């Protein structure tokens, strides 16, 4: 495969991905602050957090589910991020060792 062709494709895909990242920000300039879309965006973060976590657990299998639940419970109890991540990883690796 021609190096220049690969370089061109990488640049096209890079521009496409940046357009998606900046596009929402630029288009939102024309949005009314009290409109339905603005209200939707204000309420979206927590719900997107949950959906992101569920998607991650699905792709991570049992180890992902166990690790995420343990990390979440540890965070709720201790409010210490390092403790939550350590406990989550330990649980995930233990789960993957028991059920490969």
């Amino acid at each position, binding site marked *: 495969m021609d190096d220049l062709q690969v370089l061109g494709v990488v*640049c096209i895909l*890079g521009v496409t*991905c940046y357009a*998606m990242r900046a596009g*929402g920000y630029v288009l939102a300039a024309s949005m009314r*602050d009290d409109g339905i879309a603005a209200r*939707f965006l204000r309420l979206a973060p927590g*719900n997107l957090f949950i959906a992101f976590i569920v998607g991650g657990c699905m792709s991570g299998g049992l180890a992902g589910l166990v690790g*995420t639940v343990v990390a979440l419970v540890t965070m709720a109890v201790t409010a210490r991020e390092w403790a*939550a991540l350590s406990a989550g990883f330990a649980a995930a690796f233990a789960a993957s060792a028991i059920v490969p």
Partner: protein
Amino acid sequence: MTTAGFRRGLVAALPFLLSNGAAGLVMGLTYKGLGLGAAHAILFSLLVYSATAQAITLSMWASPLPVAAMVVACIATNSRYLLMGAHLRQLFGGLAPRKMLPTLFLLADASWLMTNSDADRNGPDAGYLLGSSIPMAIGWVGGTGLAYAAPLAANGSLKLAAALLPTMFIATLLPSQWKNARSPWPWLTSAVAALLVARFVDPSWSMLIGGGCGTLVSMMERKDG
């Protein structure tokens, strides 16, 4: 955009140096297996900077390259960034575009989620978005480069650690988000919708569709927004 916010984001996202580094390494090893040169692989991770878009375009790699199909795949997998960007406008709308637009180059799921959580605690600060984005980008691009520099092979533990950290890290942000919730129904809706989409449609759409369904329920139960 403050220096304190930048520092706070940079420190908070340091674990992503490792997880994105491991994931970038796995991506780099795959590129290497395809016969892509180091410079092209690093440029790919730097410019596209999206695990899902890179994985999908990688699976389409053929001669001749199906450019149009790859562009459509990038748009489909990254459409969630439109929503994230529009939400960031609400947080940082007063900031000059010359500061925000370059920062958006490094926008990632985790940096957006962390910035929202920090905005709830400390108020909106685009410095946090930039600071938290930097370790993630260095990890991802550095990991891709490391795949070419070191005689490594992807193993199970490395793949598992790389796959799990983003999800676990975002899970640690949930307790602080719960205080904004009025009932469990929106979150439950998000979870069920994301589960169904990931199972029956495509995992890359689960965040956008699941989060969207939950937000509609939030809108129905709140009149004041």
